[in-house]
């Protein structure tokens, strides 16, 4: 019997070519996702990428798998519904900092709390890039590059890892677009984690935040084991500079829905019948 051909990372890329700016960190996330899929040997038709709106949310089109380019901020809601209906699939939700922490902020909190077995990759460039450079929930307080906030947003940026922890996320990691191989490993681990996994990616925007190219010299890998004590992790997330990468926190708990609440597609169809 013939062995199935082992797919390489490039085999997971679709025919659609990205239109991101050259130098955009999202290319690196695309590369890391395809490397993770190749490393895990995941079948393309067992995988679904769901996104919201924004530059980063274009990503599902560039991967040769099933994909859903959803509504702004609602990628997580769609991804969770899909996973509950089809637990056999590998489901990844994707989006940017505006999509995930502002417009979809409430979905983010409840996805962390609910703990459906999906992976959420938030590509954080601290700016709304697609609409040409407005401040987002993670923009630094004094970022004055936009004419809409000429003196900076003047409010403290969100700390995504701290938010995720407070809302109950059992698996929290941070990657960086300058290190796609580490990111690929983190994505593979996130997919294998049996519950909600949140990967916060520092993904530079070369166009509206050119200063982020400096991340290359200041981002570092955290060389300690992942924390499992939420109190210790909370202290870390509140006091760190947000530039350490790696698996930061892992404290597995039962995913939702539990095994006793198996949902069939037919049940869902019945439930939605008008």
């Amino acid at each position, binding site marked *: 019997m013939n062995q199935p051909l*082992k797919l390489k*990372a*490039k085999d997971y890329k679709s025919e659609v*070519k*990205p*239109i*991101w*700016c*050259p*130098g*955009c*960190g999202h*290319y*690196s996330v695309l590369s890391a996702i395809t*490397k*993770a899929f*190749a*490393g895990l040997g995941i079948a393309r038709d067992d995988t679904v990428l769901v996104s919201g709106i924004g530059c980063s949310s274009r990503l599902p089109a560039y991967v040769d798998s099933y994909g859903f380019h959803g509504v702004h901020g609602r990628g997580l809601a769609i991804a969770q519904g899909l996973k509950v209906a089809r637990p056999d699939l590998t489901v990844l939700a994707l989006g940017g900092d505006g999509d995930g922490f502002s417009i979809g902020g409430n979905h983010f909190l409840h996805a962390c709390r609910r703990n459906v077995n999906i992976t959420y990759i938030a590509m954080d460039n601290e700016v709304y890039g697609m*609409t*040409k*450079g*407005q401040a987002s929930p993670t923009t630094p307080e004094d970022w004055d*590059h*936009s*004419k*809409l906030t000429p003196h900076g947003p003047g409010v403290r940026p969100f700390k995504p890892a701290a938010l995720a922890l407070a809302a109950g996320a059992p698996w929290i990691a941070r990657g960086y*677009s*300058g*290190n*796609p*191989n*580490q990111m*690929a*490993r983190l994505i*593979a681990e996130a997919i294998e984690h049996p519950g909600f996994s949140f990967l916060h990616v520092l993904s*530079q925007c*070369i*166009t*509206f935040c050119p200063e982020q*190219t400096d*991340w*290359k010299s200041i981002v570092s890998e955290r060389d300690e084991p992942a924390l499992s004590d939420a109190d210790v992790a909370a202290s870390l997330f509140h006091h760190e500079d947000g530039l350490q990468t790696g698996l930061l926190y892992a404290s597995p708990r039962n995913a939702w829905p539990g095994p006793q609440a198996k949902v069939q597609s037919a049940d869902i169809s019945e439930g939605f019948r008008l």
Partner: protein
Amino acid sequence: MSKEQLGQFLAHSVELESEARERYLELSEAMAEHNNKEVAEFFGRMADESRLHLEEVAEIAEQHDLPDLKAWEFNWPEEESPETASYEAVHYRMTLRQAMLLALDNERAAERFYRSFADSSQDAQTRRLAAQFSAEEASHAAHLVKWLGKLPADPEHPLEEDDPPHMPE
């Protein structure tokens, strides 16, 4: 042990050349999309060069048992394989000179990587192949230096926009 060393070396070599080609292709397509035709053509040419080198390395590798490594299991001197253009180093307004300097850095990094095996491997075949690959990368670098010498100087602020992309009030 020597077979293992050779297998590891060839696995790294194939990945290095393959990643270099993929990244140059990606950059070429991205630059074409952003109307930087000169740089798009240059990166396209570098992708072709990398493909030729990849074919040469892959042909040698086919005759040996290579370990099946995942992307994060390769042992590179830095975050990515040495000949892969870093995402931080490119910009849609970069000039041909900047693109060539980036490619030169990549060739020299690959040359150093191969030379480290040529200098330190305990396996004779690995040392021989590494010296051959290193010399090839050095010759690519020398070509780039020659081309760079023929280019006119860049404008003073090549990345500055005539019409900045920020939205007016």
